[in-house]
């Protein structure tokens, strides 16, 4: 793209992706409800829009391919081609191909041979469908139509909607002769001529055809014969044929397909043959008469229904059509597309504001003027609200991420030959966009795992008296400042004994250690567990689970697992709502301040003099009879200056391990705006980020997991040097901490 269309092109890609998403959702919905006219329309619209916009950018490959898919969709929409599983599969394939083409264009790459071949294969399948459509016609009339009540329309009368192309007359054909010929097949009961497309006198070309016709034909002929009447103008007209006995739903479809956008409701109803002109006129008169009595006239639709001239569904559809355009406009006006970078910038600024606000509050406190303090208190309250509001801007519903799994579940269950249903709850739960982006991969892993190994094959399920159809549940909810995401299945559950056996073999737990079932299940998240050996022995559960855990812990989240034999397994992921601002616990060493994430702090204890004496020689303290490894932050960060008079130990925990951090001062809770550290600090151990205090000083955020590891390894080395290893009954905690490091 040498043209300066960069920005517009980006918008095009973004829009196309969301359209493809809609398309996929629509197709999946059609798989369960093949008569969902709205879904068909949505899919068609998506393809149509992508084709149109691609044309604007001259992306000919996309236009050419999408056009073929659109043709097939158009036939589906016109009830000329029946939707079945194969066709939906093909259309999903087309959707994926369009996505690939978009990706290739976005990367500025050339189409490779593979993609080209795939496109050709899909295109030939598509054209096969186009050719096949004629033979599916008779069957199509027999497809069940969704019942919206209202019953059948009376009589053996066909309804035919005709819109002739502009050029028919110039091509030497007279629409009238087709209608006359149609009359030979039966009796034209009613015919309405529509001139809505007729332009103003000045623009009207007398040699063009602008007319449309709504025809009620009483005839014994079959659909193919009626359609045959229009063979000569097939490419030059829009033709909709509704067979006798069509239900209200069909007419509703028709209303939605007719081109007369601005036709008044009444006209649409007349056009459908649902009401006659006379009935309409009467209702209009009634409306006019009533409006004299009342300021706001009762809508025409209500009058028609009240007088039982039309079924409510028909009016509803017609009204919907009128409202749709207006509604879409107002929807667009309510949503603003904002670049994610701008939002990040705003969040950054709000972070600065929080820090500056803390500085101002501190100053006010020092100076002590009550008016000044009151003012800063007000400001800090507002700043807090702004902070919450700004963070909320980045909140997105998890539903979008969840619904992507409809496709995964569909494809994987086909692949595995299992019948699995996806149940989504809590889709409206919100969380930070940056978290959403990173949760996709671990979730996919868990979902695939559940489907692959959790849910048993149909025969096994049937033998165990369970419903043959497996169920996979995705659930999300908020729980005290964090979001919980659950991936559950109703499969066979985990094999507790095998896991334990494996864990003992691998030295993850001691042979005589007493563990609860839950602790045993959660062992599959341990790093040593995911080996090829485990795959065969444990029917695969646990493969890559440590990767899942690592991904989630990188988001400052946790993961745990529940399982009941024969009933299924649920993996529960707990994530912080945001990655930008956390609750911290501020501690001081010398003149420096450090922040420990508050949720990792267990307790704070003052170090006794006796302990302080012993610290120099030992790497652990006796904590109420428990061996607790510790790190002296003063030593770790090489803080200058003399030790203070008193020292405290902050007990932190993470991932089942505990350790103490020895600090000088405890300074209390602190709203921490996380600032990432630059590249050059990436090798510094024990620090995960920085933040700025109210005084303007920088405080480092401690990387607790790595500090715990260091504490444990230091304890081990000190112990072995002093020949103390194995002495004095190391408690379970220390044992495990050591083991996990080795």
């Amino acid at each position, binding site marked *: 793209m040498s043209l300066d269309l960069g920005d517009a092109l980006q918008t095009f890609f973004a829009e196309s992706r969301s359209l493809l998403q809609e398309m996929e959702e629509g197709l999946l919905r059609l798989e369960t409800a093949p008569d969902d006219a709205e879904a068909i329309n949505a899919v068609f619209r998506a393809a149509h829009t992508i084709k149109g916009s691609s044309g604007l950018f001259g992306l000919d490959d996309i236009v050419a391919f999408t056009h073929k898919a659109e043709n097939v969709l158009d036939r589906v929409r016109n009830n000329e081609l029946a939707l079945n599983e194969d066709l939906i599969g093909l259309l999903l394939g087309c959707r994926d191909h369009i996505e690939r083409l978009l990706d290739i264009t976005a990367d500025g790459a050339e189409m490779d041979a593979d993609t080209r071949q795939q496109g050709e294969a899909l295109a030939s399948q598509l054209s096969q469908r186009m050719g096949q459509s004629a033979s599916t016609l008779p069957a199509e009339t027999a497809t069940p139509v969704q019942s919206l009540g209202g019953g059948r329309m009376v009589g053996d009368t066909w309804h035919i909607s005709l819109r002739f192309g502009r050029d028919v007359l110039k091509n030497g054909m*007279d629409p009238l002769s087709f209608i006359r010929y149609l009359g030979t097949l039966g009796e*034209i009961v009613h015919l309405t*001529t529509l001139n809505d497309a007729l332009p103003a006198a000045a623009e009207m070309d*007398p040699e063009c055809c602008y007319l449309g016709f709504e025809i009620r034909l009483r005839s014994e002929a079959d659909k193919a014969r009626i359609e045959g009447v229009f063979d000569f103008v097939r490419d030059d007209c829009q033709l909709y044929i509704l067979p006798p006995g069509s239900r209200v739903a069909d007419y509703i479809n028709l209303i939605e397909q007719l081109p007369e956008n601005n036709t008044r409701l009444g006209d649409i109803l007349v056009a459908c043959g649902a009401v006659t002109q006379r009935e309409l006129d009467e209702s209009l008169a009634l409306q006019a008469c009533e409006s004299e009595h009342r300021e706001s006239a009762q809508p025409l639709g209500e009058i028609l229904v009240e007088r039982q001239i039309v079924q409510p569904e028909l009016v509803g559809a017609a009204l919907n059509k009128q409202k749709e355009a207006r509604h879409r406009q107002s929807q667009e006006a309510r949503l603003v597309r904002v670049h994610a970078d701008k939002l990040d910038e705003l969040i950054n600024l709000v972070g600065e504001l929080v820090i500056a606000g803390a500085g101002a509050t501190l100053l006010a406190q020092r100076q002590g003027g009550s008016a000044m303090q009151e003012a800063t208190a007000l400001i800090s309250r507002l700043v807090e609200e702004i902070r919450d509001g700004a963070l909320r801007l980045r909140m997105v519903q998890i539903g979008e991420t969840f619904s992507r799994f409809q496709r995964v579940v569909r494809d994987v269950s086909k692949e595995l030959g299992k019948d699995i249903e996806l149940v989504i709850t809590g889709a409206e739960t919100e969380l930070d966009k940056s978290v959403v982006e990173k949760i996709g991969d671990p979730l996919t892993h868990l979902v695939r795992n559940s489907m692959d190994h959790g849910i048993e094959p149909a025969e096994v399920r049937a033998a165990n008296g369970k419903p043959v159809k497996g169920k996979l549940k995705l659930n999300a909810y908020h729980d005290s400042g964090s979001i919980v995401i659950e991936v559950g299945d109703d499969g066979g559950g985990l094999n507790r004994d095998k896991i334990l056996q494996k864990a003992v073999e691998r030295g993850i737990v001691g042979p005589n250690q007493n563990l609860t079932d839950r602790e045993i299940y959660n062992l599959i998240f341990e790093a040593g567990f995911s080996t090829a050996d485990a795959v065969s022995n444990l029917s695969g559960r646990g493969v890559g689970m440590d990767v899942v855990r690592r991904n989630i812990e990188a988001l400052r989240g946790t993961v745990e697992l529940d399982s009941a034999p024969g009933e299924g397994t649920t993996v529960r992921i707990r994530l912080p709502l945001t990655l930008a601002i956390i609750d911290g616990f501020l501690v001081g060493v010398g003149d420096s301040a450090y922040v420990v994430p508050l949720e990792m702090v267990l307790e704070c204890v003052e170090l006794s003099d006796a302990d302080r004496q012993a610290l120099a020689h030992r790497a652990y303290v006796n904590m109420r009879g428990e061996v607790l490894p510790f790190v002296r932050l003063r030593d770790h960060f090489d803080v200058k200056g003399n030790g203070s008079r008193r020292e405290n130990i902050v007990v932190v925990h993470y991932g089942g391990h505990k350790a103490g951090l020895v600090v000088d001062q405890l300074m209390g809770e602190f709203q921490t705006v996380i600032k990432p550290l630059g590249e050059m600090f990436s090798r510094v151990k024990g620090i995960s980020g920085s933040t700025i205090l109210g005084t303007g000083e920088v405080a480092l955020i401690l990387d607790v997991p790595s500090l715990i590891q260091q504490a444990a390894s230091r304890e081990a080395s000190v112990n072995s040097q002093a020949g103390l290893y194995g002495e004095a009954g190391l408690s379970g905690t220390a044992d495990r901490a050591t083991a996990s490091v080795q």
Partner: protein
Amino acid sequence: MELSSERHENRLRVHAAGEMTIYSAAELKPALLEAMGQSDEIEIDLSNVSEMDTSGVQLLMLMKREAGAAGKALTLSGHSPAVLEVFELLGLGGWFGDPQVLPADAKGRAA
């Protein structure tokens, strides 16, 4: 297609004769519009129209609509059998709202 017109007080009567088809549509449109510009009350006599196709009907519909929009009265009179057949087929008699005299044979066909 031939057009001739005569004036009766305020009323302009236009006689159309021959084919109202695609072959004459291009000339007919400006001629009819011009005639409409000359008076507030126009009558188009269709008694000598020998043939009518979609383009002819379409033109008459355009005239009727334009006249209505401009607050003028346009009536059609003396529908020839060719015109009646088309109006009957397309259900346009009511749309134009002019009295139509059905000849005996046309009546039989319509029933």
